[in-house]
């Protein structure tokens, strides 16, 4: 499955980049992720409770960052395994500075396997879109937070933020 898109964050590129290479803050924004342990150079492992409401599962995941070109590009490789299947994917993030904001272009390809794939194909595209939205919304909150501020993440909070953002965009306030 291929995903691609863009997302604009109201923060300078340097700030976004610092976030993107900080596993702890990153984990805070990945829906369902717990703490990531460093297991190698730019390589982390941890448990992620991936999924949506009714269909959630615990995955043992590994995340690896490659091809780091600060502050504009990296490749992220994700590998997760659980009882309901596995997710294996990689994607690139390209950051572009735009008048103090950052445009993120993401493109990725993921393989989803196991029971999830055999019964859930109709949901996978939608689930991916939903989770990507959740991730970026959470990320924006995290990146734009004042230093030392603890951002509360959660699906409702993030969705709320997402809607506010859309509203602002709609009325040209963004």
């Amino acid at each position, binding site marked *: 499955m291929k995903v691609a898109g863009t997302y604009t964050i109201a923060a300078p590129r340097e700030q976004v980049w610092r976030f993107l290479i900080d596993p702890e803050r990153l984990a805070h924004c990945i829906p369902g992720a717990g703490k990531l342990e460093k297991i190698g150079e730019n390589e982390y492992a941890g448990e992620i409770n991936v999924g*949506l*409401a*009714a*269909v*959630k*599962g615990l995955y043992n995941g590994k995340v690896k960052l490659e091809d780091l070109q600060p502050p504009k590009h990296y490749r992220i490789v994700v590998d997760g395994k659980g*009882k*309901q299947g596995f997710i294996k994917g990689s994607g690139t993030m390209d950051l572009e500075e735009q008048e103090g904001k950052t445009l993120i272009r993401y493109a990725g390809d993921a393989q989803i396997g196991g*029971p*999830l794939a055999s*019964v*859930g*194909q*109709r*949901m*996978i*595209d*939608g*689930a991916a*879109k*939903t989770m990507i939205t959740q991730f970026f919304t959470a990320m924006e909150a995290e990146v734009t937070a004042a230093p030392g501020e603890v951002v509360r993440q959660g*699906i*409702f909070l993030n*969705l709320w933020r997402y809607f506010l953002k859309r509203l602002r965009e709609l009325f040209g306030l963004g």
Partner: protein
Amino acid sequence: MIPAPFEYHAPTSLDDALKLLGSLGDGAKLLAGGHSLLPALKLRLQSVDHLIDIGRVASLRYVREQDGKIAIGALSTHRAIESTALVRDKCPLLAECAAQIGDVQVRNRGTIGGSLSHADPAADYPAAILALEAEIDAASAKGKRTIAAADFFVDMLTTALKPGEIVTEVRVPVLAKGTGGTYLKVPQPASGFAVVGVAALVTLDGSGQVSRARIGITGAAVKGYRALDAEKALAGKKPDAAVVKSAAALATKGVETTGDIWASSEYRAHLTQVYAERAITAALTRARG
């Protein structure tokens, strides 16, 4: 085929159910008709520690007219909704929608409360519920609140229900003369879920202009939504074929349609527009009587 073990609770009153839900917390899940939850449990896509079977809460099983609206208890089955004369006569759009869910056996067991709470992106109800601007009552140990249909579907498989809340009632309007509605669906041939489903509800004024249009869409995106641009394009217009066509073309405006093996995102968007056109046309015919 075999669910993982769980603890089972079968309260017979709403209060008991709410208490259980409150005390058992995150590991608990409600079982109504079971036609969304049990398949997921059997496939072990989901497991629960506690299953609270509210199927015996008889007070949530009714369909009646009250205060000019049709009030439907959350445990009403799709079958009850499709076959009750009150719904068929006074809100045929909803009856039509219920009649197209799954298959006979599924409709005999599945409930409106269960289906709405599950919020499957390809379920049939969201289209009708949105077009009808239904009200959804939710109860929790803390009290009761009403959620507007437009606020209910938050995201894929995600509703505005808070932890500890149970849907208790759904209210839809009695459709007045001059109002016509229909639900048209492209069923996915294997699962029966909606590849696309469109509910159109239009009201014509005395001069034959559209005074009000509501279009609910399911299956096309991560959640059911109202095609607001299409509604606007109809409002105040004399709805000839060209108006309908151009309004229907807006049915996916601003919406990211999803894709799967049965319909790519592009085709799904196209199909949504074609079915919106057909549904609006059919609704208009009915509105004209």
